[in-house]
């Protein structure tokens, strides 16, 4: 059965190819994504209503179009082909990280020089976002054919160890948030895909023991952020104020929220950069507890749905892809929301489909495209 692209249910023989395709496409997934994008745009409109930022809404819509095309592309090309090329892709991502390291533009001048961005044709691209996708595909490749008989944890861990390279490169950009997130994706997928969990337990413990070493190598501003998170009294930072204002914003929404465009914390810029890292605080202020829970529920449904696809996937490869995407989505949502609610330090982790920013948006479209891909090909051989 090799080489066949789309395999559609046999029961539909005689029905047009288009109708068969339509029947196979994962509509609930698309509906959830569209719902999230709509809410995200609504929120962005409110967040950037100030004259200074009104162009951001249009930019975001353009990126959504780009993302939708990416979604379609990621759905149509067989995921098995992509997994076969995964290591190559990771190599490409790593080389981009290197390029960004040496040639990249300074993104965030507040924290000294960082190397997160690559300028391609006037657009800023974050190679770390590409790295996330490639790591998921590599994970699928690593776990694709583990038979209990040929199970060799050493070889597996050896392959996984290569993933330390991109994580390390991202960490020294420095973009600690994305590095930790990548680590969490690898760990989560490992926990769910390894035949035995013990090797992953060991890796996790080793990672925890490495924390003091990581701490020592961290930049002062990063240490401050984390200290500031633990207690604003120890190290009062800008982030500390951000978190405080974010908590005020969320809390002030009370049960029903202040209403669309009525959030004073948002409208008058008390939470800085609220369209990228803090859109959830804007949402919570304007839509209250009810709206906040509804948004979380939509993400919950998305996760459940992706895991559902993982369970019903045709092969291990597809299943692991879905688990990886689910892990990525899960940690993005949890870290971002926890940060907004003041129970996690301020790290640059976006809220999928809601945060403003092309790189993050396109990455999630592509990731969901992969899930749709797996879902589309779950039937038949």
């Amino acid at each position, binding site marked *: 059965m090799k080489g066949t692209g789309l395999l559609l*249910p046999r029961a539909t023989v005689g029905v047009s190819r288009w109708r068969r395709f339509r029947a196979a496409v994962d509509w609930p997934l698309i509906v959830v994504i569209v719902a999230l994008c709509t809410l995200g745009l609504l929120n962005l409109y409110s967040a950037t209503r100030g004259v200074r930022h009104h162009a951001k809404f249009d930019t975001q819509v353009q990126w959504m179009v780009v993302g939708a095309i990416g979604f379609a592309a990621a759905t149509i090309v067989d995921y098995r082909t992509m997994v076969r090329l995964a290591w190559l892709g990771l190599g490409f991502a790593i080389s981009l990280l290197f390029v960004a390291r040496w040639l990249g533009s300074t993104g965030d001048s507040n924290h000294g020089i960082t190397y997160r961005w690559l300028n391609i044709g006037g657009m800023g691209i974050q190679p770390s976002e590409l790295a996330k996708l490639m790591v998921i595909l590599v994970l699928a490749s690593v776990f694709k054919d583990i038979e209990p008989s040929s199970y060799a944890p050493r070889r597996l861990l050896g392959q996984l160890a290569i993933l330390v390279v991109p994580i390390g490169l991202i960490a020294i950009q420095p973009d600690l948030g994305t590095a930790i997130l990548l680590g969490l994706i690898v760990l989560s997928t490992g*926990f*769910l*895909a*390894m*035949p035995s*969990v013990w090797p992953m337990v060991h890796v996790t413990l080793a990672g925890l023991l490495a924390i003091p070493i990581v701490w020592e190598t961290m930049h002062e501003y990063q240490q401050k952020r984390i200290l500031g998170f633990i207690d604003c009294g120890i190290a009062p930072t800008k982030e500390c104020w951000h978190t405080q*204002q974010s*908590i*005020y*914003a*969320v*809390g*002030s*929404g*009370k*049960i029903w929220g202040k209403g669309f465009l009525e959030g*004073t*914390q948002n*409208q*008058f*810029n*008390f939470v*800085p950069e609220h369209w990228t890292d803090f859109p959830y605080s804007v949402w*919570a*202020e304007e839509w*209250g*507890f009810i709206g*906040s*829970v509804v948004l*979380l529920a939509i993400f*919950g*449904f998305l*996760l*459940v*749905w992706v*895991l*559902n696809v*993982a*369970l*019903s*996937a*045709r*092969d*291990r490869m*597809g*299943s*692991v892809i879905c*688990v990886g995407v689910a892990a990525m989505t*899960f940690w993005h949502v*949890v870290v971002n*929301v*926890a940060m907004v*609610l*003041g*129970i996690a330090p301020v790290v640059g982790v976006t809220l999928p489909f809601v945060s403003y920013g092309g790189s993050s948006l396109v990455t999630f479209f592509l990731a969901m495209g992969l899930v749709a891909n797996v879902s589309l090909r*779950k*039937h*038949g*051989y």
Partner: protein
Amino acid sequence: MLIRQSSGPGSGNGPALPELHRRLKWVAVIGIGALVVLIGRLWQLQVMRGEGYYERTVSNVVKERYLPSVRGKILDRHGVALADNRPAFNIYATPRQMTPAVKAELVRMLGLSDDEITKIDERLEVGRKRDSRAAIVILEDQGRDRAALVEQSLARLPGIEVHHEPYRYYPQGDLAAHMIGYMTQMTAVEADRLGNQGYDTSELIGRYGLEDKWENYLRGKKGTERYAVDARGQRLDDATASALIQGERGVPAVPGANLVLTIDVELQRLAEKAVSRTAASAVVVVEPSTGKIRAIVSKPSFDPNIMTGHLTQAEETMLKQDPRKPFIDKALRMTYPPGSIFKFATAIAALEDAQAAEDENMFCTGQYQLSGTVFRCHGTHGKVNLLQAIQHSCDTYFWKLSERTGLDRIAEVASEYGLGRPTNLGLNGDAGGRIPTKEWYERTSHYKVGYATNAAIGQGDVEVTVLQMAMAYAALGNGGKLYVPQVVDRLEAHDGRTITRYEPQVARQMKTPSSALDIWLRGMWKVTNEPGGTAFEHGHVELVPVMGKTGTAEVKKHHKQDDEDVERWNPNAAHAWFAGWAPRENPEIVIVVLVEHGGPGGTVAWPIAKQILEGYFTKIRTPPLRMPEPAARPAAAPARKDVR
């Protein structure tokens, strides 16, 4: 759950990833756990603490600002303003937003002087201690140009505001400055103390004179204004603000009450002009029938307009180093030996006790000996009776009287006339001074007979204020009523309605019998109206019968190089006094003039009093008097036996 334990059709070999199936429970536990934590936190923030955070976000955007109340005016008896308000531009800054960059920009833009920069720094320091987020005045009463410059660049100057507010000013300049007083920004200590009385750190408060004493009536009640700002502190437009602010947009300010004085600006100006050639002096003009002060002068003076916020360091140092002490009110804060104008106490004490008589003659050889000490009279008067002794101001006669009366009797009469005790005007530290008694001397050192000799002519340890003397002479002139001096006639609301009218207050009725008083009064008449009188020799008022007494109070000699730098002011010269009234019967005004270190009373103080009296009767009094026909004068001249 949506996750079904189903395998896709065609995948007959069981699930693709059996590990996932086995560990689904964990996935569920972690997923639901995370959800519970996040929703729990949301519940805590939004439902449990939501109300509190809501208030916080409101206070983030809704700010409150004091609306200055219009300070009450200070008016003279005819409604002429002595202290008023005019519009001015005040530049405010929020200390928290005042970064060095903002300050540098402000300094560059306005070309601020070092003095102004120091002032700004001091004020910001005070502001920071109180509430670093509340805007305070850093530069008050700025010109239109500066205000416009700042207003154009507000975008580059976060936290800086320009407000158009009433500003205190004194249209008469330094006229009656000591009485009116001035205002200054409060100190850090005061800011702490007055903060809970509704004062704002940046406010000016009355610092001296009436501005200080009547602060609570003049200041009115501040209003508040609520407005909305964004995160950078920029004010939001009115429509947005209305939507955000629930309830009152603010409370309007209540203007302060106007103070209507008993002072007559024209008379005050006349008196100040009369002393303009002196280096340091004081004048009090009182209405003897009520105790109302009509003019009160203390020289050297200061311009309250400069004192109110515009005083530079250099000017302040200069004023503080002036040996003439311009900040001390010489009419009621400084005490001086009264010299011969005090002799009424000695004369009345002796007459009351029948130890003196009008026609008793004594002989003045120019000196007087008492237990080995020689006292020198200022002239050799030969044979004089009491009236002549008053007329020529013969000290010997009073020295001899003091032998009979003793110190305590003189002190008793002086005290009865209110000398040596604060007058209860209650302004500028209304001083008491001192009327020494035997007991006082025993308490401080040891009593000697010579002390009474000195006190009899208002020297030695006798110390009084100009105002006390004015009230005492008013009592002499009005037949024996000692009034409490009064400078505020009434309190008016800003619409002109009278709130409180202050009635004249009699402190005491004198016990002096009219026979004794009459003898003293006839002596006074001779001083100003008969040849040989210490005042008559230096001028005579033709217009109206004037009563008076001159005084020349010797001062303790001291030599301080610095003090002699001031022109026409020799700290070793005697104080020149004049006290008197006009007309003789039913006097309209009592006038006391002191010229500090001016010299003889007759040559220095009397001409000043004469100038004021003539000016009063020809220009200020209604109706004004005309120069009398020569024939009319003798009719007023005969002495009267009884004075009301």
